[in-house]
């Protein structure tokens, strides 16, 4: 036992020593790394079909509590591919570029009209890029957006992250799309991904996110304005904070609808999908009014809201149908309803442009708020 344990000890320590020599290559301290927080991709100016990659790097600052603003460094480089540009950027800095904390991918709006497969490949293939990174479209260019440092940004917090995923602000105008969702819905048949559009104001002191972009197959894109974004987001992602203003007969009512439920059915006529019946249930309270309200008349206001909002939803659905885009994933749902051998997707593709929508809206106001 004695001799054996000694041999074991010797062997183990030799092996550990050997590996310690080898391990030197993987060991890298945290202060020798640069944390890329946002990556921006624009079309290249000098290289044809190339990309311009901009990195926003969060620089750790000595005493975080004392510094008033976060400090960022920006790196830009053009390359034929995203990977190549990043490889080149690695030679521009003295530390390792660490993509593990890269949580937002900002893509120039123009690029989204091309084939996305190429640069999406880079992000999925690399093991260290988070699949839960947010993907956004940028207007006018990714670089401009990246370089915005909002006034409200606190040190050691990055406003690009707080916009999405309900980390900081929560608003039905902000669509959150993770990289894996974007990839999944982009490649799958029967659903189209939606990306938020990031804009900035004139002085580049604010980031504004309230529009979105539907990305179709074959490079077709469609912008949704803020209102449509709000409807899409609250219906599909159940985003909270939905409010709606009714204007009728001089009555202004602002409804805060915090519960939104939606489900739909696809009805078929024979082998052909013919109608989508959508049930929407919203409930909430009255948030603002220019006249005194009576609780007895709540059902009346319900009715008002129902009619008005049904119109809005129908408008959104028809707008999407016209462009043959399907961010709701109706096609996917239809595919799931039939055995694959019946090729339901083909039938769907033919039928979708002419399909009917039947929207059944139900609004339930729980109270008139704190005052009548």
């Amino acid at each position, binding site marked *: *036992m004695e*001799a*054996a344990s000694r041999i074991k000890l010797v062997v*183990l320590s030799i*092996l550990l020593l050997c*590996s310690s020599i*080898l*391990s030197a*290559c*993987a060991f*890298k301290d945290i202060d020798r790394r640069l944390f890329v927080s946002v990556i921006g991709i624009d079309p290249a100016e000098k290289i044809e079909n190339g990309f311009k990659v901009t990195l926003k790097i969060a620089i750790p600052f000595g005493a975080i509590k004392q510094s008033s603003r976060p400090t960022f460094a920006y790196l830009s480089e053009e390359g034929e591919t995203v990977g190549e540009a990043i490889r080149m950027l690695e030679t521009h800095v003295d530390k390792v570029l660490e993509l593990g904390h890269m949580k937002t991918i900002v893509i120039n709006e123009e690029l989204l009209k091309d084939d996305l497969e190429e640069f999406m490949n880079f992000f*999925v293939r690399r*093991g*260290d890029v*988070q*699949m*839960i990174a947010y993907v956004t479209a940028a207007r006018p260019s990714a670089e401009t957006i990246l370089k915005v440092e909002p006034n409200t940004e606190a040190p050691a917090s990055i406003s690009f992250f707080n916009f999405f*995923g*309900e*980390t900081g602000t929560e608003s039905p105008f902000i669509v959150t799309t*993770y990289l*894996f*969702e974007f*990839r*999944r*819905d982009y*490649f*799958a*048949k*029967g*659903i189209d991904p939606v990306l938020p559009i990031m804009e900035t104001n004139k002085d580049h002191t604010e980031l504004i996110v309230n529009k979105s972009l539907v990305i179709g197959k074959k490079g077709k894109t469609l912008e949704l304005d803020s209102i449509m974004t709000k409807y899409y987001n609250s219906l599909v992602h159940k985003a909270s904070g939905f409010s709606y203003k009714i204007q009728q007969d001089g009555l202004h009512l602002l409804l805060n609808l915090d519960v939104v439920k939606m489900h739909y059915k696809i009805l078929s006529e024979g082998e052909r999908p013919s109608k989508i019946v959508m049930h929407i249930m919203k409930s909430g309270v009255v948030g603002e009014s220019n006249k005194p309200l009576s609780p007895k008349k709540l059902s009346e206001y319900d009715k008002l809201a129902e009619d008005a909002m049904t119109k809005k939803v129908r408008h959104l659905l028809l707008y999407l149908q016209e462009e043959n885009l399907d961010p709701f*994933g109706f096609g*996917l*749902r239809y*595919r*799931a*309803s*039939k*055995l*694959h*051998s019946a090729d*339901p997707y083909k039938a769907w593709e033919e039928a979708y442009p002419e399909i009917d929508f039947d929207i059944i809206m139900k609004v339930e106001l729980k109270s008139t708020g704190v005052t009548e």
Partner: protein
Amino acid sequence: MNRFLYYLILLNMVVNIVVEVPKILIDHSHRGAITSMLLALVIGVSFNWIVIKLFKEHPGRSLPELLHDYVPSWISKPILLYFAFTWFFAGFLSIAAFTFLLKRFLTPEMSTYIIISTFVFLISYGILMKTQSLLNSVELILVLNLPIVIFLISKVYSDRSMEWDYVKVALTYSNNPPDYSAVTAAIYPLLGIVNIIIFNRHILEKVDMRMKQFFIILLAGAATLFTSYFIPLGYIGFGVSENVQYPWILTSDSIRLKYGLIERFIFIFLLIFLSLSFLNTTIHWHVAQKLLDSFHRTKKLIINEKDYNPYVWIVVFWVITFIGIGRMTEYQLFLYGKYFFNQQPLFAVVLIGSLMLIKRGAKKKWKQPAESN
């Protein structure tokens, strides 16, 4: 059924949720993955049943002992060698898989050999351990880890980004005929019971399977296969997943723990499954070493009453692992994994066959007790 048998079965199921099995199944998603899984479930659970029933007659005896007693050595030696190789290779494959995983996702700059040595030293310790201590630690680690595994899996099930429509689309492919490779891949997670061939020596009571146990295993197996195949589709998308090397890792990276200590789910997931996989590999190699020990051992290596035979085998394991994995590519890993899965029917036949031989041998011995002494 004995608690430890459950552990062996469960451990193998949980570990195989992650790497090769879902990859092969998802590759077959247009070619009969669902029917294959159903078929595999039936075959796998019945196989459990048969093995347990056959071992029930020999409480407290391991397969090498039984072979030694009842089967002529010219039959038993090749069987032992074949089994030892199978078990070694099973362990080898999981080390290879996790080496690639770690290199890809956790420590990309680290050399392959170092990653291998992370496992290999401690696994060797596990090989040298007393068998009952190993069972004890399996119990301990499994009981501590299972709640976390259940939390992780339930988080994957309940996350808002999970799109069930893709799962439903996948279900529309349930009218395809089963495929051989998919069936064998789906059987593999259900075969944890085979470790009984060594561990039976330390498991004394309740080596039996009744209706209740049958259904428990059936349910657990069904849940395992369902999770393994369908859940990644909800995150990666149906028809998009074929070119993904590690569907489950991508899936685990698609979940965000908003208020968790660690935001990225993937790290907890990787480390927990790494630990369980390590444990399973330790079991495999422990069995392989025990089999090799009864295949061949020399008295020359017993120095000062200390048996150095296991050390020789461990060094052999090391050499094969370091050279093998060092030269392997990910593609080869999946290829060999497939070959390994595909040869499972042979394995099943040999195992059941040898148990039958033992049964016959034992009967003969009963009839001629004079000769046996």
